[in-house]
């Protein structure tokens, strides 16, 4: 499955989020490829789910992908608690 992480410029925070998401995914046995990007280019991109800070997430809209908003982006527990069910749901849907 594919994740796109988003922040204002798509350089710092989104890349940190991406590395965190991928390490959590690996810990739970999910195969997640991903990309970090900025808010402007995130719209219209294809992926299974987006992860961003809550303020950025509120600006995102997608018909096909789930959007996960993280209130405190350095809180690893929050990220883990929020994305594991999402990844499980995507994996279940695909029958992986």
């Amino acid at each position, binding site marked *: 499955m594919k994740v796109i992480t988003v922040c204002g410029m798509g350089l*710092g925070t989104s890349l940190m989020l991406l590395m965190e998401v991928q390490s959590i995914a690996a810990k739970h046995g999910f195969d997640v490829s991903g990309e970090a990007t900025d808010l402007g280019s995130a719209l219209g991109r294809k992926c299974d789910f987006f992860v961003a800070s809550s303020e950025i997430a509120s600006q995102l809209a997608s018909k096909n992908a789930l959007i996960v908003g993280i209130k*405190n982006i*350095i809180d690893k527990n929050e990220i883990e608690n929020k994305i594991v069910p999402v990844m499980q749901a995507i994996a279940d849907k695909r029958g992986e």
Partner: protein
Amino acid sequence: MLLLNGIVQFLSEPAFILGLVALVGLMVLRKSVSEVVTGTLKTVLGFLIFTAGAGIIVNALIPFSTMFTAAFHLTGIVAEDNSLVAAVQISLGTVTASIMVCSFLINVFLARVTRYKYIFLTGHMMFSFAGTMAIVLDLMKISGWKAILIGSVIEGVSMVLFPALSQSSVRKVMNTDEANADTVAVGFVPNTDTVAFGSVAKTDTVAFGSVAKTDTVAFGFWGSSWISLWGWVGGKFGNKSQSTEDMKVPKSLGFLKDMAILMSIVMLVLYVVTTFFVKAADMAKISGGQNPYLFSVIQALTFTAGILVLLQGVRMFLAEIVPAFKGISEKIVPGAIPALDVPVFYGYAPIAVTIGFLATLFGSLLVIPFSRWLPVTVLPSVIGLFFMGGAVGVFGNARGGRRGAIIGGILFGITWTLMIAFAYPLINLSKYNISGLWFASPDAIIVAVVMRLVGKLFGV
């Protein structure tokens, strides 16, 4: 001989130096062959896109600089580090890329042997600082391995020093210092549930253990000192119990978070207003006969488009290099504290981000009418104003509530603009054929000014 020559030429291409770093990093992290190949190629491509973006930006700024001078008889600059550094890569690329890599190694070494465990992981900032060092040293007639050595040591030390300087402010923002423990409930925490859990747990351990051990994150951004300073000053005028987070901000301000839109608006205003003041005959020459306003609109949007291209390039090469840096530093430095990009603090007071940005924009605009008496006119530079202004809002709010955020922001806007204006004559970029661009990061400017002044003592 031919081979040696080939290797030397290969290593004088910055795109290949960074590609090599990605290659080594990906192999150290034991990635698969296909990941190593794609990662290395993407790094090289990213770097080439990055410099192409700089070309677009510089070309869109040349007519603007001419127009601005024709209209107001002043020199106008936009403060933006990434574009500036990208624009000098043809001549200073090797030194820049080498400084970036070596400064990371020095940072890891310092974090390993001293008690300051900060690992600076904001990649574009590492790159822009390395470029700043390359430029300043080049102007001081220091080049080659000497420039790489001096630049790397200064950047490596800065990567530990600046996070250390701002750490007490970071603790205030994150509520992990003792003094703040009691005010957790009245502060801005109720708005962000997860923060409350995190910070309460952290304050408990602070009481028993040493403070340093509870730090989970540091400020890895070259505006940290100036943001912490004005957040602290704002706090002196404020009242912490009146948080920005109880204020209502219209939802329609949401567009402010999209940098491309915000920058387009500001650049359009700058170009079109300037056009209005240029004599028709001069304008016809600059626009090559095209309708002046149409010309300005296209150039303003081309500038923004160039920034977007440049950022896409940076994004591509950082996506490979930063994880490698992170992986390596985690192996070498136990208990490393990552120093991260500025938005990690926005979540602690999201409304303060908007308030701080608007206050900082206002502060910087206050300086413009006085441009005649300054060495240069500093035009509203959106990226710096937004990211640093937002942070001053958060830091000011943590120490002095809404008044702290507003006063801190206005003072930051004024002082940042004045800092750039007064430092401008010390670093002349005309030799690189760059007009209309200058440095933006306060920490890097402070270091560069100190280097220039020390250099002048020794006659370089």
